[in-house]
């Protein structure tokens, strides 16, 4: 009986297909026919090969004790528990998104009021495949933004994403904007380009959209 218990445990530890193998083992052990999982034969504890019966009993008892101790400490986690917690996580995400929205409104009002706000967005021209390494923006002759691109950021730009590179404050009136970029062409040649643009700031927030291509930089403001 003990022998059979061990056999079954061994079988249960195998991959799914072994469920049937385990039955085969028993068939083999009892009737000498059917499908046999060979490794179980070498481990058949009825063949103690010189080990004392007491030692075998000890090993079996220890195995059972270990199994029982495992069962005692294992806490099964139900699908409902996982689902319930997941729903609470979804709720807190929603709450935090709400806080983020309020904070971004506060930040905009406090730091970038609409009468002085200017935002500079950068995109890659459609179909551009050159590798953009860095972009620098100068406003009124002063550097205000410099960005080095990671692979992920570059990929996002190439897929049509638009990066807000700079948000700041300027007076109403006309301002010089200078944009420079550095990169590499597909052939590996260095690419560097600088272009200037006049930003006309009036009462409302001003958005400048910059489109980078291998040989041109185009500007659009609204």
């Amino acid at each position, binding site marked *: 009986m003990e022998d059979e218990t*061990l056999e079954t*445990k061994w079988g249960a*530890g195998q*991959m799914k*297909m072994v469920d*049937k193998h385990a039955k085969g083992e028993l068939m083999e052990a009892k009737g000498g026919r059917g*499908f*046999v999982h*060979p*490794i179980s034969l*070498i*481990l058949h504890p009825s063949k*103690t*090969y*010189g080990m004392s019966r007491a030692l075998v009993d000890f*090993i079996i008892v220890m195995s059972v004790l*270990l*199994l029982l101790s*495992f069962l005692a400490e*294992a*806490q*099964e*986690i139900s699908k409902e528990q*996982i689902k319930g*917690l*997941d729903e609470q*996580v*979804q709720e*807190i*995400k*929603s*709450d*935090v*998104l*709400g*806080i*983020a*929205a*309020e*904070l971004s409104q*506060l*930040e905009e009002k*406090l730091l970038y*009021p609409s*009468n002085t706000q200017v*935002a500079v*967005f950068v*995109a890659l021209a*459609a179909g551009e495949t050159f590798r953009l390494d860095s972009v620098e923006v100068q406003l009124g002759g002063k550097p205000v933004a410099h960005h080095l691109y990671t692979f*992920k*950021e570059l*990929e*996002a*730009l190439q*897929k*049509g*994403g*638009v*990066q807000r590179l700079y948000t700041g404050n300027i007076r109403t009136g006309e301002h010089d904007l200078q944009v420079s970029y550095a990169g590499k062409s597909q052939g590996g040649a260095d690419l560097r380009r600088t272009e200037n643009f006049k930003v006309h700031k009036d009462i409302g927030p001003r958005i400048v959209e910059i489109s980078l291509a291998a040989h041109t930089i185009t500007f659009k403001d*609204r």
Partner: protein
Amino acid sequence: MAATVPAPTATAAPAPKSLKDAYFGEALYYALQGQWFDAIARLDAELAQHHALDEPQLDTLYYHINQAEFAVGDFELAYRMHHRAGRAIVRVIEGNVEEPVRNEAVFRLARIYFQKDQPVQALYAVERIRGAVPPQIRDDLAFLRAQILMANGRFVEAAHILRELQAARGLEGFSTYNLGIALLKDGKEQEGRNFLDRAGQIGESSAAALAIRDKSNLVLGSKLLEERDFERAKQLLDRVRLSGPFSNRALLESGWADAFQGRFERALLPWSILVDREVTDAAVQEAMLAVPYAYGKLNVHSKAALMYGSALEKFITEIDKLGDSIKSIREGHFLRALVREELKQDANWVVRLRNLPQTPETYYLLDLMAAHDFQESLKNYLELEELRTKLAAWESDLDAFEELIGQRRAYYQPLLPAIDREFRRLDSQMRLRLEQRDRIEQRLEAMLVAPRPDYLATGAERIAAEGIARLEGKLAAAGAAVPGAIEARIRRLRGLLHWNIYTQYDRRLTEAHKNLHDLNQAMDLLKRRYTAFVRTRQAATQSCEGYDDGIRRKRILIRGARETITELMARQGHMLETMAVNELSRRREHLEEFQIKARFALADSYDRATRAQTQERVGR
């Protein structure tokens, strides 16, 4: 039997060909990097602003509004906010949209239900699709429909759809594998096997296609092995790549396919490859017993004994390692390792996690980490940690805002009373001047109808006229008769003045209009400066007043959210730890069984080897 396999799906909505709204583009920029929180936050803000407009058709988002509504649902889905994503999509469905847009929305809703293991609702949703479907989702919709039907046990209909999808691009292998499974479930055993066999031979080279090819071969190979068709099982198992995720299992079973036929030398080939692999893998551990078993069967008992001994040592080491891992998890090392910053930079972080010091537990958790429940719980934990970091940063942002507001207040408060006084003085002067200008304008307009040359007399002329009038007054007051010569001179002077005023009237009127025009320009400048001053003055007040309540409220919200997150992280962390401990305990139990068996087998092999040597000696 393996369940259905979903085809790989796109994670972020593609950008429109001609992007007109930079803020929508910004949300896509974050989404394309997998930064879902930032993507949702930005797109939510943009959509809220758009919907609050009186004339949304003038907004640049108007051109992308349908795509943006979908995108926010997609981002929420990717951020695993299924409830919100579902609500966003239902809004699209219930809105006044065209049939293809509505059908695409229903498709997305059905996908959410399916992913959330709600096949009945998914089926209900997908059955609402009627009429035109956008061409780009046609195959994906059919594939989803088939998966949903399979999940609802309707294998005949699923198989019918999957048959139609055999040539669909992007679904190569997936449609064939699922068709095989659907047919098997429908009882069409041979046909199902044929499709699994076909999926196991697809020529695609993408990682996903290769993985499904391996899976098909392993599933079918295992099935044949179960049925004791060893020769064919081996053929299929040997198709599995040696480097793929299913290779260990395939090598193990390939060895058994030989061993079951008594071909132990051949069985040693895959097992010997396997036995040198990562010792924590269950298949490798089984191979560590299988190899000496094969040597035993080949009557090489001494080698078998040595290898059993080596396996036993390794099992003991691994059991100790598992014990250490369970202890380490209970001490919180596992959770601390999971949130290490450097791991987030690496897409292959689960593998890198194994190499970190103080995280021995992760050696045995790769299988567990691949399980859906664990993955979802782990993502929740990591996202909660991300939110916790954000909230902490925001709280210090609020401190900075308060300091900024305090500094602004300290700067403006002493200045503003004097500025306001000066402004009031200038304001009254300005109003006076504006009234004067208005009067002049009214007069000039009246003079166009009823000319009044006297209004346009110069200053000198007015003084002269007043001098003449004064002289006349004096003469009249004297009472004496005015000499004729003087009277004539006075009349002449008055006549001269009159002549000049009347003859120059037209020119003077033109000049007056010109001057009024110049005055208007000066007044416009004045008004602009006035408006700019008023705005700046308002901005000065707005930059430091009216924030206290808002900031206090946000602090309360942040504090509440932080408390909730701390509690949820503790619960989610405990759940992860429990899952990990359960998995490690299961593996330890398994190894302990192996250990017992290795001990018996070791003793047996020594016994046999000794007997063989004795017999050899006796024979000699």
